[in-house]
């Protein structure tokens, strides 16, 4: 079979438009997704699942260019999909098939010889923590176990790229934590690039190297997690009292200081640490917190949404 050469950009989209009748699902989406684990973040109906389906070549885009692993999914769909693992959002799976048979069958469908498919189905199920349960019918499994079965079926054929659509949907907090740890482990230990679609900020923040925030069918923010979270330079200072006096003293020394409750936000870098130390000592204040300015993913997301 034709092998797909490695490509530095896992996914590249330029002006991708997808319409369903009069509804515009993707309105000129531009993004580059690199190696590692990338979170596709957005509210329900933002266009995440549509984008995943375009990446798989299951739907045709109306405009724009899209490359997955360096190939156009609309023309190289079959070869491309044989090297992609996919776990859908829904939990409906063939109920009377055992987990082992289900994962083995999908591995065979992804062109593995039968013997290899059997072996790798078992290995994948052990990896996701269902080794002892692998001969149980999928229909008797809990939602958490089904999510693991889907994950095992997505990785059993050793794909180059794994697409996970809401992989923690329906899981309780403990199961969610375990699933996130598992995804992180698979993404970092086995050399598979992953795109994880989710509308849970904390999940993406916890396991992803990069984030693409989609709203209204457009990419509103994209980048590495560290890059997105880094805010303007400066410090956040929290003191036990007289924050106004501290702000005035620092302003007199030439630093932009904004008071927010008991917290003081300072801009700039040169000499700011020394200035804060000296001012706090001069006023005799108790210093509760001193940290670089930064943003959570929630700040980024809400900022993007605004």
């Amino acid at each position, binding site marked *: *079979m034709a092998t797909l050469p490695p490509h530095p950009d896992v996914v590249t989209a330029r002006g991708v438009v997808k319409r369903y009748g009069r509804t515009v699902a993707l309105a000129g989406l531009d993004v580059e997704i690199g190696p590692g684990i990338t979170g596709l973040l957005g509210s329900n109906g933002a266009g995440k*699942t549509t984008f995943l*389906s375009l990446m*798989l070549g*299951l*739907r045709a885009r109306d405009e724009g260019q899209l490359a997955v692993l360096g190939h156009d999914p609309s023309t190289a*769909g*079959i*070869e491309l*999909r*044989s090297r*992609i693992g*996919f776990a*859908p*959002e*829904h939990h*409906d*799976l*063939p*109920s*009377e098939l055992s987990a082992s*048979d289900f994962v083995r*069958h*999908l591995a*065979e*469908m*992804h*062109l*593995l*010889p039968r013997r*290899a498919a059997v072996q*790798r189905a078992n*290995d*994948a199920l*052990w*990896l996701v923590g269902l080794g002892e349960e692998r001969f149980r019918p999928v229909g008797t499994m809990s939602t958490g176990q089904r999510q693991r079965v889907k994950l095992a*079926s997505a*990785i059993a*054929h*050793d794909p180059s790229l794994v697409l996970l659509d809401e992989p923690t949907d329906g899981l309780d907090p403990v199961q969610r934590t375990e699933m996130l740890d598992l995804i992180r482990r698979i993404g970092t230990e*086995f*050399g598979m690039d992953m795109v994880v679609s989710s509308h849970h900020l904390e999940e993406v923040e916890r396991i992803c190297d990069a984030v693409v925030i989609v709203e209204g069918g457009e990419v509103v923010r994209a980048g590495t997690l560290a890059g997105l979270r880094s805010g303007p330079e400066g410090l956040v200072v929290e003191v036990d009292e007289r924050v106004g006096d501290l702000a005035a003293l620092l302003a007199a020394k030439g630093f932009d200081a904004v008071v927010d409750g008991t917290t003081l936000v300072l801009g700039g870098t040169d000499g700011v640490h020394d200035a804060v130390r000296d001012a706090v000592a001069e006023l005799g204040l108790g210093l509760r917190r001193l940290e670089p300015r930064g943003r959570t993913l929630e700040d980024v997301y809400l900022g993007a949404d605004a």
Partner: protein
Amino acid sequence: MSSAPDARLFDLGYRSYDGPRHPPARAILTLGVFTARRVLGLGRGALHKVLPAITLGIAFLPALASVVFAVFASEIVADDLISYGEYTFFIGSALALFASLVAPEALCPDRRTGLLGLYLAGPLDRTRYLAAKGAGVVGVMLLITVAPLLFMLLAFVVAGFGPSAGDTPLLLLRIVGSGVATALLYASLSMAVSSFTTRRAVAAVATVLLILVPVSVVRSAIESAGAPDELDLLSFPFVAANLSYRIFGETPEGDEPITHLSTGLVTAGLVAVIAVGFLVCWLRYRRIEAFR
């Protein structure tokens, strides 16, 4: 520290795979075989095997009875045995029942459980998926349209009642040709029906109705309302049975429908029905939302 030179590590757990992979077309074969096994209940619980086994039993019964009669009867009269040509007519009800089981089981659960989306997210597109499913359905239908006749032929040959060595290849060709035509007809009809619903039971009932209802409707229209005889081509069981007679060079007893239509017209009608059935199924699958 010393170690045995042939020491190996087993059970390394999940790891990357750099072994061989099949070409993409292999997915069609894999899915076709998987479909056939599921339809027949292989690898599934005993309950799933009951209906296919009963239907196959019904289909083989005339062949078995014929062979037993030929072997044990003191005097054999050829007219007492079921001929190859009339076999399709004899097992008409089993064919309708089997068709109503096979395609719904092959197609409906995939859409109902979302497995269709997982297949299409792999190295298959909709056409290849339907080709695999069609191959699975037709393959299973051949068990009922070809296998009993082959069994009968083999039994007759072994018992010394069979055709001469010179006639056997032609008879084999006729058995296969008749069986394939009948299997394609019933497969196309039941697949077309199954493409409209995710419910197996609904598809099964609708398939039986599609096969049986036109028989009486068409007859009434021809006999009472003076509709053209060509309308008989919509009596699918009679089309299959009549073509089977013609393939084996036999003439049906009595005044069966379609007998007075030309072979060319019957063949064209059969091909048209098969084509329309598969086309309807394909067009339906083009519109089905597989990704949820």
